[in-house]
């Protein structure tokens, strides 16, 4: 491959990598075991390799691993081959956000890879020239210029073509609208945009009030940015209130549009029980007013009958981008004090923005559920803040969107079909950095914040959100490629790539929340979260997800999942035993030995065994042990490890281990508990000499 400028070029995929990959620590989030198969089949035939590369641990800088770095057409692979076992780290080029080469020092030349899933890999390469070559290659490889270069077009899991086609039938938005209860006497399907002529960023199928005519739609669309006229996003069966969405009106200082006014009137009238509707502009008022000077703007309450207009101040994509960058800087600090961290978090403003999005969602959800009033939501173009706010409101309103399939449908509806510009926002291709913004991250985080407040209200778990997050950026599946439906059709994504939704669905056992209790009162209907600032938490398991040492070492969820499975199995077994007993009783009433059958049942045994397994989540192991591969195979790994093993691994993870005897200075340096030790060491000496 021409991008790879390292001297050694092979035409053969190294066999050892293929073999080992299924035990690599990253298989977990990159589509399971199929990963390595894809590599065999894909174009990853050119490999360059650099030996004796050190991978530093971000949190404990004294800890490092030595291995070989491979560059393939699709992945950067680091293979650690010390200590008798292999440990591999795979990073997709499409997940690379930036590559940074730092000044060389005596120990080598540092190369930092920052990934879009918040992983940071800190390599040290001995030769500066080699480092430079890797840097240049990676830069090119991680910044594809054409869609065809994206991984989803070369990702070929072991699935035949018919199955692949079926993957895309898994989610059907038409079925989703039917679930909501439309079309009905109030709302109808409009095919006015079937050739993407009215709005090139809208989907082909849209729902509008029964009474709207084609001329009203086209008229209204001409009065809205990018032709994004008001259309239905969510319909509430119980009270006919709806969430509609659009872009900003081209009102300037005084312009009016009769059709647009009629459009809103029609939306209002399709909610028979209400005599007014809300129009929510999700921008800060100042931004909206500035837009008026450019001939855009917001609705004038005087021109539209029976609307109540309201701003909710959510900042624009540029503010959000820089806020997340600041927040990530805070996360990357090696050993910040509590004050550094909290101050950094505050000044990033990240949680403030999350709260703003959630607050807006609550405002709309309450208008629908409590007042029964319809809401039209827009921002500027209606594909960022509008998508966030509509989908957050949906999660709050409708328990269906709190299920595994429901959340997929919601993302498909409010984000993918309505033209959130995924490829721009997630920088799938090299392009304008000002278009990049973590808008979808914020939506996922809002859902997570809600899960933290309502642990029983969601069918899915945190891992589900994190996996979706990864794949939005990974370009492994076709779902998020492109910026709108028209673009996706042109790319032929449904014909050429795989669908994430089907993959997630077939692995849904991994993403199920064992505490899901849809019948619990606070999990039903409208969620009423607290929006007091103290209830907003920092999402460490996303933003620091690769810093395993920070996370709880044991997982309640894994334990409960195991218990739940066991309980179900036992119930089944019990039922089958009961059936057998009753049969036996029928056949030979004399011979009664049911109790004995129970006691000998093997389940009681297996439970204990399974629990030990459940008790040792992978995070715990891989966080503590440098190499998860060999440890994972022992069922009783971390928690029942013999103490010596544990201290050994703990040792290796926090220190060099060799300079044990060299006294307290070393103890403090290697101790994770003594960040301030060096300073205190000095002051201790002072005290001591004075004494």
């Amino acid at each position, binding site marked *: 491959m021409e991008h790879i400028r390292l001297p050694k070029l092979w035409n053969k995929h190294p066999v050892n990598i293929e073999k080992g990959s299924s035990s690599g620590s990253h298989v977990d989030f990159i589509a399971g075991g199929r990963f390595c198969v894809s590599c065999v089949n894909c174009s990853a035939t050119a490999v360059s390799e650099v030996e004796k590369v050190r991978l530093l641990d971000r949190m404990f800088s004294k800890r490092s691993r030595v291995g070989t770095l491979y560059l393939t057409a699709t992945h950067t692979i680091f293979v650690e081959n010390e200590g008798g076992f292999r440990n591999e780290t795979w990073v997709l080029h499409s997940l690379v956000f930036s590559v940074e080469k730092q000044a060389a020092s005596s120990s080598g030349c540092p190369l930092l890879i920052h990934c879009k899933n918040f992983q940071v890999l800190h390599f040290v390469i001995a030769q500066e020239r080699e480092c430079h070559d890797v840097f240049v290659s990676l830069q090119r490889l991680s910044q594809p210029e054409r869609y065809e270069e994206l991984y989803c077009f070369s990702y070929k899991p072991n699935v035949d073509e018919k199955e692949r086609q079926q993957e895309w039938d898994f989610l059907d938005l038409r079925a989703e609208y039917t679930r909501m209860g439309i079309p009905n006497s109030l709302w109808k399907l409009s095919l006015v945009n079937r050739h993407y002529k009215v709005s090139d960023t809208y989907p082909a199928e849209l729902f509008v009030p029964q009474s709207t005519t084609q001329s009203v739609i086209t008229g209204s669309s001409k009065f809205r940015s990018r032709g994004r006229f008001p259309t239905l996003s969510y319909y509430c069966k119980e009270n006919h209130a709806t969430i509609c969405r659009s872009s900003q009106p081209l009102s300037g200082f005084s312009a009016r549009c009769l059709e647009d006014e009629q459009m809103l009137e029609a939306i209002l009238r399709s909610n028979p029980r209400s005599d007014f509707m809300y129009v929510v502009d999700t921008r800060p008022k100042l931004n909206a007013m500035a837009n008026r000077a450019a001939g855009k703007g917001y609705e004038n309450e005087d021109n539209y009958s029976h609307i109540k207009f309201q701003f909710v101040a959510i900042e624009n994509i540029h503010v959000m981008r820089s806020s997340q960058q600041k927040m990530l800087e805070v996360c990357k600090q090696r050993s910040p004090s509590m004050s550094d961290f909290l101050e950094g978090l505050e000044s990033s403003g990240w949680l403030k923005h999350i709260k703003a999005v959630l607050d807006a969602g609550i405002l709309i959800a309450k208008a629908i559920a409590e007042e029964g009033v319809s809401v039209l939501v827009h921002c500027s173009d209606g594909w960022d803040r509008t998508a966030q706010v509509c989908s957050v409101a949906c999660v709050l309103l409708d328990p269906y969107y709190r299920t595994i399939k429901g959340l997929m449908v919601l993302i498909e509806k409010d984000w993918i079909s309505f033209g959130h510009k995924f490829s721009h926002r997630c920088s799938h291709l090299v392009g304008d950095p000002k278009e990049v913004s973590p808008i979808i991250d914020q939506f996922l985080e809002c859902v997570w914040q809600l899960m933290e407040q309502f642990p029983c209200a969601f069918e899915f778990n945190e891992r589900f959100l994190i996996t979706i997050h990864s794949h939005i950026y990974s370009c492994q599946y076709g779902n998020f490629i492109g910026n709108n439906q028209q673009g996706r059709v042109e790319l032929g994504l449904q014909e050429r790539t795989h669908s994430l939704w089907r993959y997630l669905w077939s692995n849904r056992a991994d993403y199920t929340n064992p505490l899901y209790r849809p019948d619990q009162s606070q999990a039903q209907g409208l969620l009423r979260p607290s929006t007091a600032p103290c209830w907003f938490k920092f999402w460490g398991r996303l933003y620091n997800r690769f810093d395993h040492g920070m996370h709880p070492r044991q997982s309640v969820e894994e334990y409960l999942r195991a218990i739940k499975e066991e*309980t179900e199995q036992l119930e089944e077994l019990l039922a089958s035993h009961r059936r057998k007993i009753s049969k036996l009783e029928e056949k030979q009433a004399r011979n009664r030995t049911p109790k004995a059958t129970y006691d000998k049942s093997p389940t009681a045994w297996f439970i204990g065994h399974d629990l030990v397994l459940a008790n040792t989540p992978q995070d715990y192991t891989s966080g503590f042990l440098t190499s998860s591969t060999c440890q994972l195979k022992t069922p009783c790994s971390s928690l029942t490890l013999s103490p010596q093993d544990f201290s050994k691994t703990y040792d290796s993870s926090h220190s060099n281990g060799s300079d044990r005897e060299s006294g307290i200075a070393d103890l403090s340096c290697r101790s994770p508990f003594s960040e301030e030790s060096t300073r205190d060491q000095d002051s201790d000496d002072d005290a001591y000499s004075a004494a």
Partner: protein
Amino acid sequence: MEFSEHIKTANVEDVVLHQPLHPPSKGTLCITGHHLLFSDREEDSGRQVLLLLRNVDAVEKSSVENLMNYFGLFPKPGRSDRATESSGTIIIKCKDLRVIQLDIPGMEQCLNIAQSIETLSHLDSVAEMYPFFYRPSHASLGEQWGLSTPERHYTEMEALHERWRLSTVNQNYSVCPSYPPAVIVPKAIGDDALKKVAKFRQGGRFPVLCYYHKKNGMVILRSGQPLTGANRKRCIEDELLLQAVIADSDKGYIIDTRSAQQAQQARMMGGGFESKPCYSSWKRLHRPMERGKTLQESLIKLVEACGDKSPNMDRWLSKLENSKWLSHVQTALSTAGLLAECVERDGHSVLVHGSEGTDATLLLSTLAQLIMDPSCRTLEGFLTLLEREFVQAGHPFQQRCSHSAFSHARLQQECPVFLLLLDCVWQLWCQFPLALGFSEALLLRLATEAYSSDYGTFLCNSDMERGVHQVKDKTHCLFQALLKPKERDQYTNPLYEPNELAIWPSVHPQSLQLWSGFFLRWTQQAHHLELVQEEIRNMVIEWGKLALS
């Protein structure tokens, strides 16, 4: 009783009670020597609220207008609209952080009630406190008081008998008033030497063993600071005692909970630290921990921040930061981690002290034991640890817990060391949810009981004082009560799996959280999260039933 002279109005009808998580209700308010009793008038509801007056941290009289702000979150009672001029309102802020409002008809009655609450909640005399009057029907006095004794602790730890002995030098509390009558000391050191060492340590708190690490025979000792003073006084017995601790090991560590500078300054006041020439085998580490007033103020600021109704995120984060409470949690956990590392991984004995050795010292030794010793992590084990390391070891509960975060009284000896300990334990509980045998509910219960209790366990400042007041004869023991079958169920952790390994906490800021179960306890959300714990318990019970059948 004399209480009656403080009660001018004992009963008031038509009082409206506003309390968190409940709609306002109207009923009769009754005040007794130790309690505030509210009975709902609706007969079918039959709800009663019994509040121990000792739990009251602050009483505020307020006009109705002001309240609308404060209670903006509570549903508006229809009846309060007609609040006549002659009605008054009392806001009661409790030590368990609950805030209650009472609307009382009649200004005079209102003032009387407020006056009585104010006085009766601050009674200083130990003998008048409620534990001496509490007589539950299900228990009788004279049952075993406490879970263990120093004697039993020593007997159970056979491994240490070879080099350590149980000394009764403090039998009459004459050597150290804040120590229990029996303590564990090196075998090589006689009682006479101990008396001399006691004179050289603040409060007579000579170094005693508090933990023996079975894996490597290393120990944790704790003491008060050495009284070296400005002229660097020495005490040969003290040096010998510490030398005897090390025996054949090459060295030991001293963790001083003050900064080097603070330790220096202490010398001017007659205190000091172990200097290198005199204690050559000991390596001193200074790990400053916040104490006293600063810690109490930190708690006050945090509680104030949690009660702030402002929706402003920046304001919350800056108040949270400014309170420094989480920084104190971080420091405590990392210092305890260091202590445990010295013992478990570095294989050396450690002496911990600060000044008095009754606060931060105990916090550290308790946390380190939880980290290292699996037997401390069961429900009984944890309560026994608290009994040994806080109650018997002489943490002055009465002084430290006489007021909490709402009080307007001038700060004296108040300091939430025990609360900080519980917060740290909660952080461990979050990081190792299967490794601790007790539940969050236990930590919450202890956090309440330490400040106001039906039981005698947290009364007084030391074993000696408890003896003087006959606490063990005249009150019931909290720890025993918590272990009774009925209570026990809610205080065990259903997910507990015994685990022999040390549980090393992560002390990254990202790993530590605000203890919402305590600091945001009286909110709907905290209530939801409590229900989740219940759900988990039910799941495990259901599974257990099937697995056993």
